[in-house]
């Protein structure tokens, strides 16, 4: 596979960065994923961290060669991440389960597959035009679909941050998968959090990508996105890939990777291992607890 890849996450004007991002690829498969931990909930960054780590972990576990069913893998990996977040909340006695959005994309055999929950987005841009995009699981998207507001109104709507699907929380996430998408040379797939996409619409992104290569364009565009937020920029995160001419010797080929080797890049901090859920109730514990209770029942005079 020959592609160029760009990844960056910026704090914007916030106190902390609750966005997490990662990409990882082997010779034959590429994963890109982004999670935007939800503010207003406890430990949004922890939820995002777990989501990105879990999805990457499962990817590296199962994509040694190729993924057999990439679309199914994505849904299943996102569900695993959701459960890992819930388990973390239980283990850490959190009053409220942390939440995060998530979008993940797999490229394999010249095709792209993706799935998402929440309002982090994926666009596919082809020759400057938007060829495919995720539909946000957001209140404003529902209103747009219903025809009650326009896209422009949605951008200023007071409920624009409300989403109805996320990882973590009581309700399992609603996960939407994209159809298998056959890539052509020059196609760009871009995953971003709302801090970025709310400032840079695809109509700007597309034409600029026609003129400039991804890795040359994106650093400046990240700065521009933050500038446009007028000092109120949310965290902004992007991971993007341009599918190159597969014969172009100027672009590195993943064939140079050793077998079962992964090249990975992420902004997760890898500090969650001690918080991993441990199933510390054994069969013996259960039997002992029941025996204790029955014993206590017998001892108390009736």
């Amino acid at each position, binding site marked *: 596979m020959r592609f160029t890849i760009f990844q960056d996450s910026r704090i914007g004007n916030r106190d902390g960065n609750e966005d997490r991002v990662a990409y990882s690829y082997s010779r034959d498969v590429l994963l890109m994923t982004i999670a935007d931990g939800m503010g207003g909930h406890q430990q949004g960054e922890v939820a995002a961290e777990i989501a990105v780590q879990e999805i990457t972990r499962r990817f590296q576990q199962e994509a040694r060669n190729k993924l057999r069913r990439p679309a199914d893998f994505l849904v299943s990996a996102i569900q*695993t991440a959701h459960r890992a977040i819930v388990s973390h909340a239980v283990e850490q006695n959190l009053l409220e389960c942390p939440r995060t959005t998530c979008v993940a994309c797999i490229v394999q055999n010249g095709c792209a597959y993706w799935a998402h929950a929440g309002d982090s987005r994926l666009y596919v841009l082809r020759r400057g035009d938007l060829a495919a995009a995720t539909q946000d699981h957001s209140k404003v998207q529902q209103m747009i679909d219903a025809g009650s507001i326009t896209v422009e109104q949605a951008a200023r709507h007071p409920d624009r941050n409300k989403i109805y699907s996320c990882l973590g929380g009581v309700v399992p996430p609603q996960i939407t998968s994209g159809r298998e998408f056959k890539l052509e040379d020059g196609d760009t797939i871009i995953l971003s959090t709302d801090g970025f996409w709310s400032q840079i619409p695809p109509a700007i992104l597309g034409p600029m990508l026609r003129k400039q290569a991804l890795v040359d364009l994106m650093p400046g565009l990240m700065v521009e996105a933050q500038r446009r937020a007028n000092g109120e920029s949310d965290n902004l995160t992007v991971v993007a890939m341009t599918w190159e001419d597969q014969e172009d010797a100027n672009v590195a080929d993943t064939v140079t990777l050793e077998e079962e080797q992964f090249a990975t890049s992420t902004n997760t901090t890898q500090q969650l291992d001690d918080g991993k*859920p441990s199933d510390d109730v054994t069969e013996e514990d259960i039997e002992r607890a029941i025996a204790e209770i029955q014993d206590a*029942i017998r001892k108390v005079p009736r």
Partner: protein
Amino acid sequence: MPQQANQPLPAGYVLNGYRIEKPLSSGGFSIVYLAKDEAGTPFAIKEYLPSSLPLRTEGVEVIITDEANLSVFRHGLKCFFEEGRALALIQHPNVVRVENFFRANETCYMVMTYVRGRTLQFHIQRNRAEMTEGFIRRVFANLMNGLREVHANKLLHLDIKPANIFIAMDGRPVLLDFGAARITLSEEAMKLKPMYTAGFAAPEHYRFKPEELGPWSDIYSVGATIYTCIAGTPPQAGDQREEKDKVIPLRTLAKQKYSEDLYDIVESCLSVDWLKRPQTAFDLQKRLMEEPPEEKRGFLETMNIPLSKLFSR
């Protein structure tokens, strides 16, 4: 409360010698059934079954295929054991009594004495006019006997609310549902995820610093419960009150006459600062049993309403 998505046990199913008659209620972590033993004695059997996990879509066996779900299931099971341990220690007419505890169908069951009657919540919703000062003082003074016993066993109930107080046919209040109860001195138990009901949980309960919880936390919930009897709705949630206290004074919500003394009692129980609350169930009980000086006659009159009136249609 989350909807219980799991299939209840079918009527007629025989569980460890108890024949299931029907489900009585279902909550976030369990289903409670009416069941009868071979002698025909009725019992309430609580089946541990977290509603958030898909565990039984058919049949009677609980099946967990997913490892993550198993971890959540077993964590909840620990809480269920805490409830069993808590109740097994207590033998008191104002506390629901646990008679048996066993394992079956890959989950656990707690057999409790079946009490005929209705929850306090039912009474509040049906007819708030029943909530006279005399009724409130009698029910809660009685209930404090049970709560004193709970606290004497180093337990905290931590989820006292109208739905967890049963009024038996004879008028006796019975404290139910020790699902949130914790053995205060056991560190293990304190590590479990706290459960609470907004509006009834004390402010310190939301923070979940175990060292701040004590009998006074249950006293807050009793105060909130009395508040609900009088106002018809619970007070503003404790965590919000700490940010901005907007509790509506009871005096403005009452639909009938109550003494200033009773308002003062409820107010002191609901103090955000736990040091300002009655510190023990006994303190609160004493205050409930004292007759308010200025309204002695009115209070005695309400006391004289025959109990039977409360349960007539």
